[in-house]
């Protein structure tokens, strides 16, 4: 029996083709993952099923839900279907809920618009649903507002809204991408349980193969608006007929060839008993201010040529620590020295020149009105005697070549580059004054897996050619594992474990590290799969 059957679905928005000949089915109780990189059309496939498309969209083909063709339905008929027969969960739990309505009202709304239930009964059912998704009313009353909940809890509210009427099909669009690994594992478990309990079909959109590998019954791989391969999960991973699937798989678990770090202690950054407090708002007028200790007594050293990882979940103090190391904010106690000199807001430019940073967002961290040449030469301001004329041009060309771009790119504007190219430019900007230490702050987190693999390779190559030392901050354990020699695990402002990366990962000592590693989704072991995949067929 099929629940959802999509046949030859094509979608144009204006004159731009978005989807071409997409066909697949989902059975009741089945989990189907749609995966691919950004721009592959996976989200648009989901929105086509919901028929929530931009106004200029034109769809052809068939989308049948229990033999009812959704494309032939009127808008009022579709409204009656959405939320009732098809529920949807979105990527960004922080913004998916209306900030001015209580969570109870928002869950009740789904029930009230589709049924003739009295508000009291609907409230009862909303309470049941919120308990079911792990928000019991005694701890999470219906009168809570979204801003009073964490990201994971908000995602549970969104799920409660989507399943309040036990829809036959649930669509989840990157439901865990914005969440921490431990929260991600809980939400994925919840979705799996709900599918089993309600017999729903689940269409799960994700860019992360590891997330779906042990959850999906079937996987659909998309690229540029087309399905390149689909099949039962084990069989698909076992065979990977299409080269793109193989490339995607390899990029997801990409391991770089990191050169050995130079021997011998040569400390370039020393953090000693660093403490960073933030004042909290006064609870009462004239009451003394309370403080939140974001970084609590942290000490570590980075030696020349060493690549150090810093992992931890959101709110653990990673970013605060980064800002302190860059000398952007003062410490309340302890000290940080770089190359033997104290670091702080008043540090001199020459010292700043030794510390450069690459940020996460390749779209927001550049001035769109400046040419690449100006963007990447910004750190020159820190030098007492910045190169000019031909020397400057040579420096630009060298930096761009080092990151795999062409010297002629210097005259272009930032909007002419893709996300991956922008991150290369960010690295060129950090590299151009030959800093002694680079801080990569979630530098590959916003990138597609294949681009991420390329940037990681670039970092490894630069380590070889430039003997880089860096602090690599990431929430992604698999990335940290491959590009660092040593790793620090941070939780609630403290470093709970540190050591040689491979040892920490293969034999974590602290319970928190163990939880993190256990929660991180892993790709299936191919050699193991191949043996079994041919048996059922």
């Amino acid at each position, binding site marked *: 029996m099929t629940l959802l059957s999509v046949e030859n679905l094509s979608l144009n928005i204006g004159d731009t083709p978005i989807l071409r000949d997409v066909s697949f089915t989902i059975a009741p109780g089945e989990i189907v993952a749609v995966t691919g990189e950004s721009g592959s059309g996976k989200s648009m496939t989901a929105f086509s099923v919901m028929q929530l498309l931009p106004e200029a969209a034109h769809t052809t083909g068939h989308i049948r839900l229990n033999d009812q063709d959704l494309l032939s339905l009127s808008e*009022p008929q579709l409204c009656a279907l959405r*939320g009732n027969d098809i529920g949807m969960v979105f990527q960004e739990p922080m913004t*998916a809920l209306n*900030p*001015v309505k209580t969570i109870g009202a928002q869950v009740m709304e789904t029930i009230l618009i589709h049924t003739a239930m009295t508000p009291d009964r609907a409230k009862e059912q909303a309470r049941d649903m919120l308990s079911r998704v792990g928000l019991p009313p005694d701890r999470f009353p219906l009168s809570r507002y979204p801003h*009073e909940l964490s990201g994971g809890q908000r995602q549970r509210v969104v799920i409660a809204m*989507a399943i309040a009427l036990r829809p036959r099909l649930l669509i989840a669009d990157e439901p865990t991408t914005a969440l921490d690994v431990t929260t991600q594992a809980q939400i994925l478990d919840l979705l799996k349980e709900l599918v089993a309990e309600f017999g729903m079909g689940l269409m799960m959109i994700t860019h992360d193969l590891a997330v779906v590998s042990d959850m999906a019954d079937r996987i659909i791989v998309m690229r540029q608006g087309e399905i390149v391969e689909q099949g039962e999960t084990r069989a698909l991973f076992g065979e990977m007929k299409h080269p793109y699937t193989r490339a995607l798989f390899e990029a997801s678990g990409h391991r770089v060839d990191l050169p050995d770090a130079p021997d011998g202690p040569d400390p370039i950054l020393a953090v000693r008993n660093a403490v960073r407090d933030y004042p909290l708002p006064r609870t009462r*007028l004239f009451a003394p201010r309370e403080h939140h200790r974001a970084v609590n007594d942290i000490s570590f050293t980075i030696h020349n040529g060493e690549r150090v990882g810093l992992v931890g979940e959101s709110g653990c103090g990673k970013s605060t620590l980064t800002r302190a190391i860059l000398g952007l904010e003062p410490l309340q106690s302890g000290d940080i020295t770089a190359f033997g000199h104290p670091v702080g807001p008043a540090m001199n430019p020459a010292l700043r020149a030794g510390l450069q940073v690459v940020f996460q967002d390749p779209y927001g961290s550049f001035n769109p009105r400046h040419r690449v040449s100006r963007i990447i030469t910004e750190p020159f301001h820190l030098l007492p005697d910045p190169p000019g004329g031909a020397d400057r041009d040579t420096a630009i060309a060298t930096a761009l070549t080092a990151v795999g771009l062409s010297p002629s790119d210097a005259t272009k504007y930032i909007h002419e580059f893709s996300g991956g190219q922008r991150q290369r430019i960010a690295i060129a900007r950090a590299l151009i004054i030959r800093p002694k230490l680079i801080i990569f702050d979630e530098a590959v987190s916003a990138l597609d897996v294949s681009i991420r693999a390329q940037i990681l390779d670039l970092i490894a190559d630069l380590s070889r050619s430039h003997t880089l030392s860096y602090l690599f901050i990431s929430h992604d354990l698999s990335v940290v594992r491959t590009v660092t020699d040593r790793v620090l695990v941070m939780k609630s402002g403290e470093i709970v474990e540190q050591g040689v990366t491979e040892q920490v990962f293969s034999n974590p000592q602290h319970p928190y590290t163990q939880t993190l590693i256990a929660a991180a989704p892993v790709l299936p072991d191919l050699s193991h799969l191949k043996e079994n995949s041919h048996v059922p067929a």
Partner: protein
Amino acid sequence: MLRYALKRALSLLISLAIASLVIFLVIEVAPGDPASYMLGINAQPETVAALRAELGLDVPKMQRYLAWVGGMARGDFGTSYTYRTPVGQMIADRMWVSLPLALYALALSTLIAFPAGIYAAARRGKPGDIAVMGATQLGVAVPNFWFAMMLVLIFAINLRWFSAGGFPGWDIGFFLALKSLTLPAIALALPQSAILARVMRSSLLDILSEDFMRTARAKGLSRRQALWRHGLRNALIPVLTIIGLQFSFLLAGGIIIEQVFFLPGLGRLIFQSISARDLIVVESVVMLLVFSVILVNFLVDLAYAAVDPRLRSRT
């Protein structure tokens, strides 16, 4: 919520104290001695000194400031230098024209702007939107005194529906009095409503592209339902800000409109007092206007908190 309101009230009092000091200082340093102005240039110095003593201008500034503030706190605004009548009474008389006019204009402007803004936002880029936006462009551009004269020409002189100006007082009956304020209120309201409609539209459009609007649609709400249930309240915050600013403007900024319609309002009072160097009246009216601005801001702050739960919990 209570703590939020108390904090806002405290900041209201502090603002008032600072404002009164600034007003007093600014007006005191303004050139021109009221006593010599009132007596003319040929007055004997002894006469001027006597009048200064009578008006209380000879005591030290600090003492006069405290007496002024203390008097206002008790409701005693002093006596006008030129008219020799209590300032409180003069202001109260004018208030009965200006305040109803401002409220009337504000109500009209909101009643026009909300539907227009919502209509335009719901039909973004379509002819309805373009027509409304064109009209608001015109509303912002047309000077309100010219518009006021056109209203007089059409509705008072040609159609004779309304009187061309003046205010008969509330004694003649609420609706008749209100009717005499209608043309001035429309003249004041239309440009304001044009601005407000534009703010409403852009604020709604921002909200319409929010993720939670998509969530609302995925629940099965129609476009219209989503806009009314989830869009409007979120879009109100910038709109409330503008309404607050507009009210303050309407209360005092109607000088020109008051002139066009011969209304005995606050704007005319302040204009006359300044030309007569009637410092005590000027100080008191300006203080009253500052008070109303601060009070309106306080009310807008409370309205924010009523609309947005995030502000209630922030302390």
